[in-house]
């Protein structure tokens, strides 16, 4: 019902009458409508929140041979500090592309991405890398931990690139391991852990540099429902504990339903 609260300008009653007891269908319709409302033309600004991510007229094209694929078309949206946003859509709708553009991992064909007031287009690759390391954490569907590094080293990796002090890093690793429930497993290799534990470790890694934004691409896509729920709970906990803005690309309605807001994409457009 968090979505319903945020979509305060939507005639909820009318939808409930229309769908009756089919809450799931209702929610999906509401999500779609809410996303349209938020994404199109003017984002809705919460009165007391600061914009942390701002996307304007974002377009991304891929060229494969002579074929051009429009992954994103004129997308504009805002995400606010501390928000938990779910980007949903079918496969190929452009949601992962949007996430990567928001993380500065890709360059847009046109349009701008601004994070914490810094517009990516004006940054060199070096500056962008540094900024990303400090400001943004990434979580991937397939975890991508280093198979021959113990968990504590894996979690430490972003700190290595940020050139942070080793002692501080170690402290932070312990703190995060505690937070994600892996403090007993720090000296284990990834292959000795379950999928859920690995993903939690990946989340801890993403949080090592205390980023203000956590971008997660299908974080539960490779997990069973129990572990998926654990991850969602963890995101909630992180948001509460660190005030981190969380943007999750997902097919999973359970995650989407837990988000403050959903942005639904279809064929590169926010609907």
């Amino acid at each position, binding site marked *: 019902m968090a979505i319903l609260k945020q979509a305060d300008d939507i005639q909820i009653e009318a939808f409930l009458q229309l769908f009756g007891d089919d809450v799931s269908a209702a929610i999906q319709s509401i999500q779609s409508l809410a996303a349209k409302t938020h994404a199109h033309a003017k984002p809705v600004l919460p009165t007391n929140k600061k914009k942390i991510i701002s996307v304007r007229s974002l377009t991304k094209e891929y060229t494969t041979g002579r074929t051009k694929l429009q992954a994103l078309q004129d997308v504009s949206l805002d995400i606010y500090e501390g928000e938990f946003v779910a980007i949903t859509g079918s496969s190929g709708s452009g949601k992962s592309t949007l996430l990567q553009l928001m993380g500065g991992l890709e360059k847009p064909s046109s349009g701008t991405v601004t994070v914490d007031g810094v517009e990516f287009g004006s940054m060199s690759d070096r500056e962008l890398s540094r900024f990303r390391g400090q400001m943004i954490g990434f979580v991937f569907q397939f975890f991508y931990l280093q198979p021959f590094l113990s968990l504590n080293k894996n979690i430490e990796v972003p700190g290595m*690139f940020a050139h942070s002090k080793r002692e501080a890093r170690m402290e932070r690793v312990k703190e995060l391991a505690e937070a994600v429930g892996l403090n007993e497993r720090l000296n284990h290799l990834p292959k000795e852990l379950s999928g859920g534990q690995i993903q939690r470790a990946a989340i801890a890694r993403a949080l090592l540099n205390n980023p203000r934004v956590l971008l997660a691409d299908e974080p539960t896509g490779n997990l069973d429902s129990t572990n998926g729920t654990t991850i969602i709970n963890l995101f909630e906990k992180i948001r509460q504990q660190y005030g981190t803005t969380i943007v999750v690309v997902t097919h999973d309605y359970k995650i989407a339903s837990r988000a403050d807001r959903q942005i639904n994409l279809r064929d590169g457009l926010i609907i």
Partner: protein
Amino acid sequence: MIGIVDTYILAFTKLRTRRIRTILTIVTSGLLFSCVVAALLLSQGVFHSINQFNKLGFGQRYIVQATPTTPIVAFYDSQSAKQSVEARATQLYTQTVAAKTQEAKKLGIAYDSSSDEKPLQTFSGPNDTTSTTLNGATPTAQQALSEYFAANPAPGAQSLKAISAKYHPTAFYSASSVSVGGSFVTMRSGEENFSTEASSSSTTTSQSIQNDVLQNGSLEFASESLVQPFLLPNARSLTKNSAAIPIALPYTAAERDLGLTPLPGTASSSQKLARIQQVYKQAASIRFYGCYRNGTSMSQIQSAVTTASEIAANKNNKNYQKPNLIYGLPAANLCGQAPVASDTRTADEKSMDQKQAQFNAMFGINTTPDQLKMPFQVVGIIPAQQDKASSDSAAGILQSLVGSSLSGNAAIPQELYNELPTPLRTQYTSVLTKGDALSAGNTAPSYYAEFSNATDARNFINDASCSPQAVSCSGATPFVLSAFGSNSIALKDLRQKISGALRYGAGIVIVLASIIMTTTLGRMLADGRRETAVFRATGAKRIDISAVYGLYTVILSLLVAAFALVLGTGVARIVDNYYWRTVTIQAQLAYGGSDPHLRFRLFSMTASILLVAALAVAVGIVSVLLPLIRNVRRNPIQDMRDE
């Protein structure tokens, strides 16, 4: 930029991924580099050992032997000389026959001019043509030749100095054959073997005479510097104490003089080495005598032997009449004159014989017997020259590379000889230099120029040598020039060639290793694209990625280098352990075992192998550059998406 410890942590994990490929890369590249390492260590070891052994011989000296065309060869190569000598021989013959006829008449003895062979022989050719040739065996031809040789001597030391001047020679030496103009044989066990000496006049020279180091052409006076590498440490005191003619004997002669039976061809290298060390150790104890006899003395000995033989054969022949003048044999250990055993000549016969002797003396035929017993003291051993049979074997090649030798002759070191007491030396010299102009024409002294470096010596040989195929040498190139004593000049060239070959080999290894490492590292980078993307997502800059892969490459290359060093060193050690004893024996044989403790090790550690290690690392770094640049320029997310 990422810290070095963190870089190492991340780089090291890469080594643990794709282990089989990593191990294969280390093994294959390491094998290639190990070949270079092994070749380097072995070549260093071989050259180091060669240097050690070279100190024993001529190996560190650059001596060029200058061999002039012998006068007899030059003579036969000159049509005008032949005509001139033939004319002179004919003239001498005519004069001699006329003088002999007149003198015989005066002395009242019989003289048949046909007993004097004409100096020119006539041969029938095709189409009824005739040609004449000089009969060198006739006294008048020999006299004409002697006059010619005296007037046209072979190029000598001055010529060598003149043509070598611009190549900066440091010293000059010479060696000339001893020519006694008679019989000169070794008194085996201190005694003459008259039967052998008598047979030496026959056409088939006995084996013992052929092998006699005192035989004409087998003994030479040589500058001490040329013999020095082969002299015993106490050569000078041996000469002084013995008052005998110092002589450096060929190994085989010394072995024989020590009463040692030559080893069979099947003898092992160890046996050969033990023998050669034994010979070297006992060489100073060899003292022997030579017996010189001039033609008359020798004739009397031969007469004594043959007459005694005839008498024995005709013991029961009543019709056999003994010669009127019978010579006996002197005591075998004296080298004395043959005593007259029986002289039943009448007074007239004696008078006639006296007149004949007077007649002969007038025409240059010496009838006075002359003989001298001369002591020799061995002061050196000259390593045996490699025989033809072994020249193609590995051992033979090694011996030819590291060995030093003279011409195979026995040699009297001139300076040591000069230290003999003057009266003795005068007596000996009168015999040892008795050779006439004719024999001098058949053998020319050799001359030697020493240089301070191989380049000068080689340039001198290349520029100033007469072709060895030339019939005779004259003018600006009067000598056939060749490296003397050892292959030090060739060795230097060989060392350069081996170094060059090693460089080429290293080049090939570098190319092959580069291909292998580029492939491996390229694959490693391609496999790591997803990981690169994750690193980039977690804040890695391109330089961080480069540092991780760069360090990974360095670690991989160091492992390749370490593998190559260990394997190459191990192989070189094994080769060394397997062969050094055999090779040491061969090298000792080449040097006569003068230093039995010297070993020919094939392995020598050298800092140059660190260069190979550095090369391996450099190859790795160069190999990773292209794939790495390509990799960091790629869009990591694109790679991740593709996967």
